[in-house]
């Protein structure tokens, strides 16, 4: 029984991946490339211990972003603003982190809290505009993404930033470095090559994921969010304050969003560099949330898949295919997945309706006979 349901839930993603690969192969053929060579070149880039670590590193911010987006999805809000939120949080976290000098853990904590705070503030703007003035969240968050980029650009011209090859915040002191997991890995006999690290932030991501799972599945607040998403009117009659729920959910989403840039800031770059700091995690998070369907394990798997594709795309240049092709593969994958989810959901619903009506007819017939 359990195996059967596992097969059922795996069925849709597998079909979607197959279709996406087939269409990608077609696109490669149109471009005059050899799909087989391109795919095998991609596959050659994954498989080593080093690449496994790099895939996980890539998946960490995308997973966190997926969580931030999913909170909105659960209540029917399409929050496109995670991109601007995490960038602003990371930039200001970098500024504050360079300005203070504290012992290790507190220094790290202060930077994380700063990033979460500003990211939350930025997320609250569209939330307040929505509940007070009914401003469309999709549009306001897109505008705020663009404004965030401008704010960071303006910020980078102040004295908090210095000029190296880029405009950047002053480098963080080692006390603000987040420890990596290379040493524990060595204890269990896994040796990463020099220069490669496994982000310690994996632990943070797992903790946040567990917290999200408990909050959404086991608490009243999680239930309120879901109820508001499914039927706002019914939720209101059940005593849920929809405005308050939107505000709290967006604040929470923003706070988690603040963590997205932290792995890059505290473990990799140790400064916020304009034009060099990794961007795009906010949008990747939406894609992951669409694939993962708001379920933590689904989100984690999708984030890892994204990390895998990102890593594998490095191999594309060996087959002389432009690297951008991986973006098309991601887009196609989500496109097919969204369609297949829709079709299977409808099939399941139709099946449920049929079974229910049959049951009803049967009990009714029994009553009549009796």
């Amino acid at each position, binding site marked *: 029984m359990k195996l059967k349901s596992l097969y059922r839930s795996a069925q849709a993603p597998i079909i979607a991946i197959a279709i996406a690969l087939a269409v990608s192969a077609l696109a490669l053929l149109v471009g005059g490339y050899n799909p087989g060579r391109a795919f095998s070149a991609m596959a050659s880039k994954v498989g080593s211990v080093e690449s496994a670590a790099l895939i996980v590193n890539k998946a960490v911010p995308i997973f966190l972003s997926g969580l931030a987006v999913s909170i909105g999805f659960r209540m029917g809000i399409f929050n496109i603003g995670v991109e601007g939120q995490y960038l602003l949080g990371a930039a200001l976290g970098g500024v504050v982190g360079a300005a203070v000098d504290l012992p290790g853990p507190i220094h790290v904590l202060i930077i994380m809290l700063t990033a979460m705070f500003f990211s939350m503030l930025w997320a609250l703007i569209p939330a307040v505009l929505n509940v007070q003035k009914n401003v469309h969240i999709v549009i306001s968050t897109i505008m705020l993404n663009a404004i965030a980029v401008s704010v960071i650009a303006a910020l980078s011209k102040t004295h908090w930033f210095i000029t190296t090859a880029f405009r950047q915040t002053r480098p963080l002191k080692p006390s603000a470095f987040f420890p990596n997991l290379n040493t524990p890995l060595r204890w269990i006999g896994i040796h990463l090559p020099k220069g490669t690290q496994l982000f310690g932030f994996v632990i943070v991501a797992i903790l946040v994921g567990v917290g999200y799972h408990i909050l959404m599945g086991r608490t009243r607040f999680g239930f309120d969010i879901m109820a508001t998403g499914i039927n706002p009117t019914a939720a209101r009659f059940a005593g849920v304050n929809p405005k308050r729920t939107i505000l709290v959910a967006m604040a929470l989403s923003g706070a988690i969003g603040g963590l997205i840039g932290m792995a890059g800031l505290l473990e990799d770059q140790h400064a916020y560099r304009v034009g060099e700091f990794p961007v795009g995690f906010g949008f990747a998070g939406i894609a992951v949330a669409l694939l993962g369907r708001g379920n933590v394990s689904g989100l984690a798997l999708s984030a890892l898949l994204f990390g895998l594709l990102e890593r594998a795309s490095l191999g594309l240049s060996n087959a002389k295919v432009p690297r951008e092709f991986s973006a098309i593969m991601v887009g196609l994958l989500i496109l097919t997945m*969204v369609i297949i989810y829709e079709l299977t959901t409808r099939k399941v619903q139709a099946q449920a309706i049929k079974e229910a009506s049959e049951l009803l007819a049967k009990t009714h017939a029994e009553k009549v006979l009796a």
Partner: protein
Amino acid sequence: MNATMNITESGISAWWKSLRLPHRYMIITALGMALLSFARITTNAPGLTAAGQIERSFILMLPILMAGIGGLFAERVGIINIGLEGMMVLGTWFAGFAGYHFGPWGALIGGIIGGALGGGVHALLTVVFGVNHTISGFVINLLVGTTGSGLVRYLSTLYFKGRGSGSPTNSPGFTGTTGQIRIPFLTNSMHTTNWLAKIGKHQWFVVSDFANVLNGFFGILRLEVVIGLLMIPLTWWILWRTKFGLSLRSCGERPSAADSLGVNVYRVQILAVIISGAFAGLGGAILVLDNSGAYLEGQSANRGFIGLAALIFGNWRPVGIFIGAALFGYTDALQVRTTSGDKSVIALFLIGVLVSAFFAFRAWRAGDKKAMVRSSLITAVVLALYIVKFEAPDDIVKALPYLATLVILTASSKRLRPPAASGMVWRKGMVG
């Protein structure tokens, strides 16, 4: 005391309500002109209504207007289209491609085809498969590559790289334009005097500003501007005066009712969404023509989304969208033209003071204390910015169109009436 005020208040609002829509639009435009003129003179910022600024505004308004009209076709048929941005990007790419091979008119048609292709994908997902509209739109944007590299980057690498000045991020441009309409004494020309420019030079209150607006329009009257503006009456005629328009709008209000009257809802929806994409693509093509015929990655710069904002601001009506697009196009042009030391932005603060003071006054008349306090606070802050002549950093000035979109949506989102079934995934046989 209070009672008489309520009477006059209702008198003004009754008069306002008795006006027909076109008259209301005219009064709003006239008031806007007076406001601009006042701000220009008191702040000494001639750039505010300079002919060049207006000319840019007309061009930059068009993509937003086209996206807004595209959004109108989609939402009036009941389909939310946040994929407009992606369709506009497709429009820019196809315009760059077709323009390189077939010249400026090829660019216009190529843009329309590119956008329509994107609209077709959206129709397939939302109408045929019944996917959530917002998700479908987002996926299209992602696939096309509005949020980073995507389909357009791949296509550019294949077809633009290595041809002339082409690269993975831009197409080799083409020379030539669609042509311009020349009217003696109105068009900028070496042989005849431009009367409008002459009047504009005098800097008279309102008169000169108005002459500048006309000069900005007639001075270099490109054909694509004319075509774009003609789409407003055309859209109105299609949607409100033809049988197809009636079916289209009924699908967006009550699809089941339309279905029961024999309208093929799926077919009308698919058609309308493809038209929607075509408009967004046309907007993209206009951007390409304006950029000396070259496609450039990131050219659309969220204008598809701003078009959606114009649609909401315009209350899902063509002329309303036009006013919204004009507003956003104006700030867009201001952002492009403003150099440091320019007083245009400061003059905008003055307009902000007057407008927010008006809102405060109206709230006071209506007895809404909370709104009054809020508007007064905003007035005070903006007035302070104006008095200290706050010079916004250049980067913030660049964000002006986005800020304006937020502010205008916030100020106008009351009393709006979207199509009733907009955003609803309708399946045949469903109640609703």
